[in-house]
């Protein structure tokens, strides 16, 4: 038996440019910051390190709430220079967040919507799914998934931040040193026009998997790496494969190893090939080797333009805490997942949306500082879940030789015969909005994401839940379903006048009469069903990140308690 030979390799979960023409990316100018102009160290409430999809989402979410922040990025562009293609698949929850940030339409116009996935083993199709047939995606105004190159989203975020203001985007600014005390952190920044120090009340490390902040803060983590190797080819064809997600567990044209096939924007296809364990990165990504591989899959007659090629190995890693003093970790600095199921970038976006409203609430004096602790409760739970789920996928796709491979063979053979075994075939479990079970600020019915449901302002004028969240402007959104008694209305009025950061909307259905100026119509009961099916007369408290804080059956003291809990009060 051929035992895998383990050798030390350089681990990366990123893509390094090797061959191909790549894309032309935007370049942003370096602007002398006030610290250099006035030769003075300034204190900022929020400093974000890293302008990838996570850091930019946080910056944009803060800008959207009118919160000032500084973002430091060592590069002067989006994507990674030369290697301009990273994440490709964005979930409904991420798309809902991007809708809130005003860039969803651009993503939808540029990207590719897909809903059909097929999985093959050898020449047989093992199973297929159509997400459009799955009711759990149907309540939202956003589709189940859109595929688009990550740098497009990053570019749209940059433009959105520039339009909103409030956030100072500082390019070509590399953090070289860091220290913190009880009251503030100090970062030493290096730029083309000199070095300077910057002080921060809150530092958000979104600088990616090679972050120096792990060492600087002494945060501990748990880490695993394997011998699985892949090679990506981003290509264009003169023929058009179907707009479907195709995955081969065992591809006859790839020596019975796995292959992924996905469409992105600009008619570019992402083809991921699983390589031999411990394969040599330079060899597998050489252009002639890549071309030969593509020919085996698509035939000699298909003309292929290689846009970009990158070999990769991966590891998975999860911090034991997402906060060290004044530093918050998010995206790939919080955890690194095995690259399956689109669980990397999408969870970075969710990290950012989770912390943004909490920072805003604390900085505006709406919430207690302890609210920030709930970021760790919620996003560490999500990180651990995503690491666990993607490790299971990796174990299916690269089973240990011997008994693990034998079990996989048995599973695949059964899956070809019987529906039940198809659920054991694991080519990646697509990312979802993670549920928060252990959060200090969620009630028993809370901790779940509410989809961006369509509502009616008045007959003929429609909107969506996101419009209500935007109107609430970083405050909690209290939805009260159906007609209320006089006593309940009085209590709601008192709550509105209490000074707590909450805005109230009455949600009406067929036959109801409006009792408040702020009311919307939910005639099909979609919003009610998205809010854990709260009964008429009851309430749902929704946070600015679209998560349910809690629900209740009556307007009473429990509601006031839920509002206070959600704000860490």
């Amino acid at each position, binding site marked *: 038996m051929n035992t895998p030979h383990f050798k030390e390799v350089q681990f990366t979960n990123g893509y390094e440019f090797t061959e191909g023409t790549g894309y032309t990316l935007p370049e942003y100018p370096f602007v002398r910051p006030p610290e250099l102009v006035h030769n003075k160290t300034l204190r900022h409430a929020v400093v974000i390190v890293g302008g990838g999809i996570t850091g930019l989402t946080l910056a944009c979410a803060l800008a959207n709430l009118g919160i000032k922040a500084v973002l430091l990025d060592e590069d002067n562009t989006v994507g990674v220079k030369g290697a301009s293609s990273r994440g490709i698949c964005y979930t409904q929850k991420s798309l809902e967040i991007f809708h809130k940030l005003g860039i969803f339409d651009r993503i939808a116009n540029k990207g590719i919507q897909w809903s059909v996935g097929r999985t093959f083993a050898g020449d047989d199709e093992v199973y297929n799914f159509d997400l459009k047939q799955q009711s759990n995606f149907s309540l939202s105004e956003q589709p189940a998934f859109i595929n688009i190159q990550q740098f497009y989203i990053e570019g749209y975020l940059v433009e959105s931040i520039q339009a909103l203001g409030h956030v100072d985007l500082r390019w070509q600014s590399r953090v070289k040193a860091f220290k913190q005390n009880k009251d503030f952190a100090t970062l030493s920044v290096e730029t083309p026009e000199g070095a300077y120090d910057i002080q921060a009340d809150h530092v958000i490390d979104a600088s990616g998997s090679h972050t120096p902040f792990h060492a600087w803060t002494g945060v501990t983590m748990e880490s695993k790496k394997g011998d699985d190797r892949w090679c990506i080819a981003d290509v264009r064809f003169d023929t058009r494969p179907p707009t479907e997600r195709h995955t081969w567990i065992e591809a006859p044209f790839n020596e019975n190893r796995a292959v992924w096939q996905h469409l992105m924007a600009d008619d570019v296809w992402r083809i991921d090939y699983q390589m031999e364990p411990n394969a040599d990165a330079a060899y597998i990504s050489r252009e002639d080797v890549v071309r030969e591989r593509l020919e085996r899959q698509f035939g000699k007659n298909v003309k292929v333009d290689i846009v970009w090629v990158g070999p990769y190995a991966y590891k998975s890693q999860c911090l034991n805490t997402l906060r060290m003093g004044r530093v918050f970790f998010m995206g790939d600095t919080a955890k690194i997942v095995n690259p399956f199921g689109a669980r990397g970038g999408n969870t970075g976006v969710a990290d950012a949306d989770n912390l943004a409203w909490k920072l805003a609430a604390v900085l505006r004096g709406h919430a207690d500082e302890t609210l920030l602790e709930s970021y760790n409760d919620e996003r560490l739970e999500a990180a651990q879940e995503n690491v666990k789920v993607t490790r299971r996928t990796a174990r299916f796709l690269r089973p240990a030789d011997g008994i693990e491979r034998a079990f996989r063979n*048995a599973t695949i*053979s059964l899956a070809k015969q019987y529906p039940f075994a198809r659920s054991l075939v694991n080519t990646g479990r697509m990312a979802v909005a993670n549920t928060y079970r252990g959060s200090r600020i969620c009630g028993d019915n809370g901790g779940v994401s509410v989809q961006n449901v369509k509502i009616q302002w008045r007959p003929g004028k429609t909107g969506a839940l996101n419009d209500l969240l935007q109107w609430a402007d970083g405050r909690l959104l209290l939805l009260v379903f159906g007609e209320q008694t006089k006593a309940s209305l009085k209590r709601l009025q008192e709550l509105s006048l209490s000074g707590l950061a909450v805005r109230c909307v009455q949600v009406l259905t067929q036959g109801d009469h409006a009792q408040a100026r702020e009311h919307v119509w939910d005639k099909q009961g979609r919003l009610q069903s998205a809010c854990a099916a709260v009964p008429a007369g009851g309430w749902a408290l929704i946070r600015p990140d679209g998560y349910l804080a809690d629900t209740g059956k009556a307007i009473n003291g429990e509601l006031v308690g839920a509002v206070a809990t959600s704000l860490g009060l």
Partner: protein
Amino acid sequence: MKTELNLQDADTFYEQLLNAHEGLNAQASEQLNMRLILLLANQVGDAAVLRDCIESAKN
């Protein structure tokens, strides 16, 4: 997890199990066992029972 007899016909089941393996080499026998484990697990379904069975089989 049941530890008292639940099989309707224990001797017949045991005989069928042995017969199924007759004439198979080690690898084919292993595949048969694995397919059988997965088929039976799906009949059980209950996560706690399956966990207890795996733990009990180890000891």
